[in-house]
């Protein structure tokens, strides 16, 4: 089972005090939350929309929506997972607007068997990233993750990059825990397979 961060009854997540102050009208407390989470929200939005301007708008819209709805925040989930849920919904809505008439959901394009069985079994160089400049590496990582089906990409980002638990990822995306687990495995294997093209050890004579 995935590890769930248990917060004891008497322990409070530090965000709770900030949320309470913000509810009482302390805008500075809300600004602290913006500072703490804006990069992650931007990253999630950009992974879903694949569009920089949209992702920037979503950062703004998600935080404003959270601020408006602070009274509805129950406190039985973490503020961050609640905020991510808002940002995921805003991102999907924006995608729908872009592709007018086409429904967009996190279930898009997941009917693929690709990557469920490892094929590229060559080992990688000890530090494969050292063979590329920072800019080249960033481009490789971006291109590779962009090629994943949406429903796998977002699970990988929330679970592995953002560090949410399996249960939190399921709650945020409205998926079952088994669905998150199955997508995560396939996302990891597909990314591995695709990165292998760049990172595998070269055989003698290969460039």
């Amino acid at each position, binding site marked *: 089972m995935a590890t769930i961060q248990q917060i004891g009854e008497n322990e409070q997540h530090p965000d709770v005090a900030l949320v309470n102050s913000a509810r009482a009208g302390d805008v500075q407390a809300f*600004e602290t939350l*913006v500072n703490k989470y804006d990069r992650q929200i931007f990253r999630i939005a950009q992974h879903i929309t694949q569009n920089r301007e949209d992702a920037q708008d979503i950062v703004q819209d998600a935080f404003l929506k959270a601020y408006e709805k602070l009274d509805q925040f129950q406190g039985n989930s973490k503020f961050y997972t609640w905020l991510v849920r808002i940002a995921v919904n805003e991102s999907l809505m924006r995608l729908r607007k872009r592709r007018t008439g086409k429904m967009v959901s996190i279930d898009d394009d997941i009917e693929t068997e690709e990557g469920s069985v490892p094929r590229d079994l060559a080992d990688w160089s000890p530090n494969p*990233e050292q063979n590329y400049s920072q800019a080249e590496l960033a481009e490789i990582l971006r291109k590779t993750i962009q090629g994943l089906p949406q429903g796998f990409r977002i699970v990988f980002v929330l679970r*592995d990059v953002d560090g949410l638990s399996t249960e939190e990822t399921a709650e945020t995306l409205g998926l079952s825990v088994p669905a998150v687990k199955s997508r995560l495995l396939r996302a990891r294997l597909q*990314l591995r397979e695709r990165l292998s093209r760049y990172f595998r050890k070269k055989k003698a004579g290969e460039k």
Partner: protein
Amino acid sequence: MTCTEFIALLDELIDDSLPAETRAQLQEHLSGCEHCEVTLSTTRKTIEIYRSHEVYDLPDTIRKRLHDAIIARCKHGC
């Protein structure tokens, strides 16, 4: 244990969430299967590399603009 059975438990192994007995079975399979060894190490590396490199950075100037816009709206009751 077959390679397919190993792959089905790969995530739990990476996330260190397996009972000791199952873990030992996987270790035993690994010691005799180079393919699964490579799959495990390169999948771990995949996760690590995405964790340690920011794929989409938010530049400070844009960050500041977004913050100012958010806070201004909050102050005026959204």
